[in-house]
């Protein structure tokens, strides 16, 4: 798995490529918490188009990101979910708790709730 950050004004987009599992979910978690808690970026967006597989440890790091963003009133957004990633989020019954868009354009343009 590779995770890289694109930093725009007030927004960071993480591009993730590869499976998210126990081997690398700690790296995802760390990247998210650094951006949200330490750098206090008001909007963090996860590009999951390159993620064909995610397991419960991956979901757990996204949940950590969501919780941290709520703590500091930042926005935490996902887009580009594969069929498989969507299935797993559905299984976790957390799909509705996340702000999710189809693509980057929508993720960037939407002003949120």
């Amino acid at each position: 798995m590779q995770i890289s950050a694109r930093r725009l004004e007030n927004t960071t987009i993480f591009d993730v490529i590869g499976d998210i599992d126990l081997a690398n979910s700690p790296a995802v978690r760390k990247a998210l918490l650094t951006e949200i808690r330490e750098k206090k970026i008001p909007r963090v967006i996860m590009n999951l188009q390159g993620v064909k597989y995610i397991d419960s440890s991956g979901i757990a790091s996204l949940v950590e990101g969501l919780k941290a963003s709520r703590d500091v009133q930042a926005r935490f957004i996902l887009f580009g979910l594969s069929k498989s990633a969507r299935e797993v989020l559905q299984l976790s019954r957390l799909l509705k708790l996340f702000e999710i868009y189809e693509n980057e354009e929508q993720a960037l343009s939407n002003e949120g709730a």
Partner: protein
Amino acid sequence: MAPRQLLLRLQLRSNPQVLCGVRGAVSPLASAIGFGEEDCRAITLALDEAITNVIRHAYGGKLDRKIEIRFSVLNGAKEGKPALEILLLDQGAKPEPDALKGLPPGELRSGGLGLHFMRQSMDAVVHTRVGSTNRLRMVKFIR
């Protein structure tokens, strides 16, 4: 009992680096037995979660402990259709009483989803302890 045919036996260490290889093996095997794409994904998820739990809970995150996995076909298991059986064996800690009950999903906590995923994905998920071995048996029938 349905006649069991052992397809593949894997021996690995409790290192998360190898998870991708195990997932890579199980999905085409399940497909070759006759499972559809969605079921192959479900089986892959269940096995990944099971190994993750062994690494984290039975072995407390240590990387060098032994895990064994056996894939078998159970022929004519249900209405003449085959089933896939996955056995997972480790020599780690005995689970805490009641820990394996699992937690309800849908809540914003970072953890507690693995057992739920396994039970949603497979038709049977049974943990037993035999001597100093933890034995997890998961079965899925072809629909």
